[in-house]
């Protein structure tokens, strides 16, 4: 586990805070004085997982650095909904350059801070952030370059499994069978094809960078602990956060966190952390569930649950989840308290 679970206190480890927990055991998000790095008034859709994930992550980074964070942001939902002229939601120094160059822009910022002696005292740190399109596809060259040079940047990918800003098209992070505008639910193999796509956290690990982690918006304490841990390293770090998208996934706006939780509990999305290419901890499944529980509520998988359910496809997805469970050792274990 990436963090010390709260010794039994009703909901301690799972809820954002709890009135009786000592302050040091509460999450950053529980604090009335949290930074709100991304402010109210942003134009994200109702129930946006990315808006939530970004505040979780950047607030945690702000906490870890005493408010000394500069962010570079890829083009995408997060950029568009946060900074349409004449208003910005960001309360931190923030730059948006292009869709595919965020990691490199962050490298430049880090280089500037280093050369000016600002990365040491006060220790201003750089965070780059983008969606899965900006990270796993168009920004991948710059990302890999930043990784291999071990530039002092924390790159955060908010993965919602597609190009949602442009109207829900497929990215290399779109899961198999999912319907997008470019992988329609038609033909003999409706939805996104199996056997394609990439899992960038594993590729990041292959760069042997100091820290790689995955997280979801359903596990706040884990997410915050990972950002905090990432900030303890110098060099290239990568956190890949699953952020459900009500629009693209076809889920009710109130179910954003639930969907992330289901992704983790079914083994669809492995939550782990790795240092220097070695896995150090995984977030075990707490209440094991079949993938169907995760798939069925999402309209992007509606074609799997028609009059004749696509049992073979569902079984195939279950196999992929089972493989994750085996590979990362996600099996449920007894909860200590």
């Amino acid at each position, binding site marked *: 586990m990436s963090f010390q679970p*709260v010794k*039994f*206190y*009703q*909901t*301690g*480890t*799972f*809820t*954002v*805070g*709890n*009135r*009786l927990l000592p302050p040091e055991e*509460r*999450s950053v*998000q*529980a604090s*009335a004085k949290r930074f*709100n790095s*991304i*402010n*109210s*008034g*942003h*134009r*994200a859709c*109702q*129930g*946006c*997982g990315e*808006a*939530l994930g970004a*505040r979780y992550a950047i607030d945690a980074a702000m906490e870890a650095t005493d408010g000394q964070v500069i962010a570079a942001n890829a083009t995408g939902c997060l950029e568009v909904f*946060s*900074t349409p*002229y*004449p*208003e*910005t*939601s*960001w*309360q*931190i120094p923030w730059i948006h350059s292009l869709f595919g160059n965020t990691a490199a822009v962050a490298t430049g910022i880090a280089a500037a801070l280093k050369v000016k002696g600002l990365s040491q005292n006060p220790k201003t740190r750089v965070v780059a952030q983008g969606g899965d399109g900006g990270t796993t596809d168009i920004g991948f060259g710059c990302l890999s370059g930043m990784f291999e040079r071990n530039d002092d940047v924390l790159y955060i990918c908010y993965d919602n499994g597609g190009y949602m800003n442009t109207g829900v098209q497929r990215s290399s992070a779109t899961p198999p069978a999912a319907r997008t505008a470019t992988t329609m639910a038609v033909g003999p193999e409706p939805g996104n094809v199996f056997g394609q796509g990439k899992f960038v956290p594993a590729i990041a690990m292959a760069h042997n960078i100091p820290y790689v982690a995955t997280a979801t918006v359903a596990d*706040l304490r884990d997410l915050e602990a990972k950002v905090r841990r990432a900030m303890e390293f110098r060099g290239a770090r990568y956190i890949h956060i699953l952020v459900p998208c*009500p629009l693209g996934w076809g889920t*009710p*706006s*109130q*179910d*954003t*966190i*639930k969907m992330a*939780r289901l992704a983790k509990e079914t083994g669809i999305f492995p939550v782990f952390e790795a240092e220097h290419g070695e896995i150090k901890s995984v977030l075990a499944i707490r*209440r094991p569930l079949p993938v169907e529980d995760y798939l069925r509520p999402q309209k992007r998988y509606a074609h799997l649950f028609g009059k004749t359910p696509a049992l073979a496809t569902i079984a195939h997805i279950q196999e992929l989840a089972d493989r994750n469970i085996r590979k990362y050792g996600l099996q449920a274990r007894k*909860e200590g*308290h």
Partner: protein
Amino acid sequence: MDKPFAITLDPGSSLANRTGSWRTFRPEYLDRLPPCNAACPAGENIQGWLFHAESGDYEKAWQSLVENNPLPAIMGRVCYHPCEGGCNRQHVDSAVGINSVERFLGDEARKQGWKFAPPAASTGKRVLVVGSGPAGLSAAYHLTRLGHQAVIYEAAPLAGGMMRFGIPKYRLPREVLDAEIKRLTDFGVELHLQTKVADVLQAMKDGFDAVFLGVGAHIAKRAYIPAGDANKVLDAVAVLRGMEGHDAPMLGRKVVVYGGGNTAIDVARTARRLGAEEAIIVYRRTRDKMPAHDFEVEEALQEGISIKWLSTIKEAGESDIMVEKMALDDKGFPQPTGEFERIEADSVVLALGQDADLSLLENVPGLVVEGGLIQVDAGMMTGHPGVFAGGDMAGSERTVTVAVGHGKKAARAIDAWLRGEVYAPPPKPEIATIERMNSWYYSDAPKTMRPVLDIIRRQSTFEEVLGGLDESNALFEARRCMSCGNCFECDNCYGVCPDNAVIKLGPGKRFRFNYDYCKGCGICAAECPCGAIRMVAEEN
């Protein structure tokens, strides 16, 4: 900074964009009724007092508890805790040990000498309470709280009613009972022992403005059993009452108890402790039909009591009884089979239920009695204005907890009646069912088991069978409470809002929605562990 036009913007300026206008549903905080509270016959706000116990403020928890029930140490021992049956935690792992925490608080109060909060200013009204059982004590307490002078007339030499004369010591040590009664008299309840009321209306002439009757049900029901001269056929009420005298009843070596209720169990277990080698319960139906609580049956069996199911006693001889085997018909009723069996028995104790002694009401006009029960309205008032009744004489569910609830309800109704009003209980909010909650958030934490007295001592002494929790496991148990339907400030709504539209008001003050920015996504409601947020359609 001489920033470039339009491309570079001032931080946080999006506050100008009031996204609240997008909303079609709005979240609202509310308090739903926790199922434990809904299930409590005494009307305790269990979630409310557990809330304080969770924080370790036991005195505040106790004060909150006694707002509804003045007898926590008793209740923590003898209540059959229907609250735990309603507890939503059973859907997560196992119900919260509410009863054990209640007992802990009650015992803690005795230890620390906690006192009730002072009553309201005196109204100058005097209310007669007949009987000092749980209903009477509860009524007297609540009347006192409301500023009335409550005066209890008790026929027996000691107060407590069936709590003293019906419940064995091993379940309710008498010092516990005495302490809680003393706290009530210290509080201002006037208690007159050995004061039998033969005629209520006459008694009221002693300057009372109203009366509450809580005389209980002490008259044992009998069944005709042909018996030889030498055989002892006793009734349970007399046996248990006899335990409070100087000399314990002589039951002999082999005791047969006839009946299937909790009283039958109590008598059998008492007989065992008095030295009976064999205590046999004879019951005409099967275990699942038995009115006694399962855990009591279990404890009795552990103590070596045997039960003859599907049996009736046909006759009692000098040293044995004749039992006829029964069979259930297709409607589930026992029917005689004509098969007989003889069982050795030195005595037979009938535990077939009790009737109330209603003789004191004989000349009260307007009263309605049905099936041995005095009929009351929603405010516990009988057909005669100003005469209220509760407890075993007015209800078919005869438990201490129900009686305490009657007493409270009657006290409030009497209070209203004295002011020329009719008591209207506040409307009950909807119940916080498990479906309205998000149980994901509760850490796995199985129930703490209370220590149990070892079996040898259970068979030979009247020491209390069930132990209490200590401070640390009482705290643990209290914290297992899921606070169903009531905000416990877990910060989830504050944390999960993608629009930062929840304002944290500080410790104990809960939260407020910032409708300027709330887009109405509903995540807060979906992720509220305890179901204290609901989504309401916007009107426009």
